[in-house]
């Protein structure tokens, strides 16, 4: 069962990644050029999934959406881990007031929903994929910090670290040689889950109009635009929704599968 989970997750994630990479070089049709004569066609040939209200091929837009999803996930998870993991490690290793300060700051940031940050950034700089990514990334920092901290604490209490400290290894040495490698799997699991959350967050922000602006397609704004056609062309709402669900499912399954696969003990801290 666990294996099936991992495999299913890998397959879905691979699907998204491959689609995204292909989309960088090629899509069946131009994903932003308006073709009024081809409006609202149903699935068929050559438009496999049909066309939208502007006559643009839906499949092509979905592919570009996959590319965006990957970029958003990588940047926001990357941002969150690059900032959050060192902070968490610091808090876990040093303890004391450093720990307090880091965790309270994390609590404060955590109390700001990603939507709020995205709203404010969009208000200052205008909505864009970048503001969405930064907002999601910043909002995810506390999660990574907490995981890193808890993992670091566990590692710090373990025998081989105590031995290392006793034999004089510096703090940095301990961090690099013992803590980091041991919490890496945890971070990996968190990254996978974070990716899934980033996809959902970006979709919600797109829906509210706080992310990628026209004409570039994201699955979230494709869903938003399909709403007016719910009665006349309901399939339009199906494809991007399905894409989001499958991608999120894939990353979640991957994360869970990794977690179960790596070490049952570590489940407690994630």
């Amino acid at each position, binding site marked *: 069962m666990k294996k099936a989970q991992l495999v299913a997750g890998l397959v879905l994630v691979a699907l998204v990644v491959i689609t995204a990479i292909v989309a960088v070089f090629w899509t069946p049709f131009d994903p932003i050029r308006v073709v009024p004569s081809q409006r609202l066609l149903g699935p068929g040939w050559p438009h496999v999934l049909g066309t939208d209200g502007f006559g643009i091929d839906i499949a092509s837009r979905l592919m570009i959406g996959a590319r965006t999803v990957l970029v958003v996930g990588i940047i926001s998870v990357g941002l969150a881990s690059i900032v959050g993991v060192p902070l968490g490690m610091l808090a876990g290793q040093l303890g004391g007031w450093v720990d307090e300060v880091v965790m309270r700051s994390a*609590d404060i940031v955590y109390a700001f929903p990603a939507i709020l940050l995205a*709203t404010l950034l969009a208000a200052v700089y205008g909505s864009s994929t970048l503001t969405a990514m930064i907002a999601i990334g910043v909002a995810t920092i*506390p999660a990574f910090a907490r995981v890193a901290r808890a993992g670091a604490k566990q590692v710090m209490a373990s025998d081989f670290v105590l031995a290392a400290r006793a034999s004089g290894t510096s703090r940095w040495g301990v961090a690099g040689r013992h803590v980091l490698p041991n919490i890496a799997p945890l971070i990996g699991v968190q990254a996978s889950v974070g990716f899934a959350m980033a996809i959902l967050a970006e979709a*919600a922000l797109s829906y*509210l109009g706080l992310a990628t602006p026209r004409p570039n397609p994201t699955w979230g704004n494709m869903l938003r635009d399909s*709403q007016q056609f*719910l009665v006349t062309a309901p399939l339009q709402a199906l494809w991007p929704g399905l894409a989001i669900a499958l991608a999120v499912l894939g990353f979640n399954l991957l994360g869970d599968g990794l977690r179960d696969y790596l070490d049952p003990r570590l489940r407690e801290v994630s």
Partner: protein
Amino acid sequence: MHVAGRIGRRLGVFAISLLGASLLIFLITKALPGDVAQVLLGTDATPESVAELRRELGLDRPLIVQYLSWLGGILVGDFGHSHLSGQPVLALLAPRIAVTSWLVGFGMIGSLIIALPAGMVAALKRRSWPGFAISAAAQVGMAIPVFWGGILLVLVFAVWLRWLPANGYVSLTKDPGQWAAHLVLPVVTLAAVQGAILIRYVRSAFIEVLNEDYYRTARSVGWTPMRALLRHGVRNAAISLVTVLGLQLASVLVGAIVVESVFNLPGLGSMLLSAVAQRDLLVVQGTVMFLVLAVLLISALVDFSYLLIDPRQAAVDSADGGAAS
């Protein structure tokens, strides 16, 4: 003594967090471009009239003075006045807080109603098909964007079947029947998504219990799995559950903001979005302050509840600074 000390310390931390958050909120809202005075005067603003209005509204004072005066006001319950309508911010927020509270409250309750039984069954039957089915359903439920679910529910129940209103809100005091009708779809949307997320936590919390000695003992003495689980498991699973609920609050609030947008509910979320668009700074500050306050308060309450549930466990957990996410 120890416990009292810890409570005191936790309160202190809560206060400092709130202060830090307020400063952050103030600074961020000041960074917004676009000018309240400009918006108020509309399309015919002249530089002179804008400057004059800024003076009237106190926007030309030094930043630190504006911050301290806002903070001071909050401490006595005066959140200032909306630049746009002149009404006191608290008066504007009060009905909004009510709406969001109903939505979040019922949503959380609904999610528990879904998650607790489902999670228990999933834990008990985890090696057979009901367990797999529930886990799979939970995974799918988590993967669906909350607004998509809402849109589909509106389409089916409001537009096609016409059983329920599509959007909008009627206050409880005005018409309880309509109030309930307007809340059904939004609450179900939120509860379904949150419930799906919770199922996994409930399941793993109960699985932990299943591995514990006291459970095995109870079973060996002849108790049915269900009884043993209920008798021992709930108390012990409660800690993880409470933690998760506390952590979930931020994500529930996010979900609530989106749901408010889909269903046109006049809650804090929609107030925030429109106040930011209109550069009504004091309303933005007040709304965010409330949202942040809610989350910080809940996490403080979560920490306090550890002490109630199990002081020993609380000692261990708080050494970890609260459970990791």
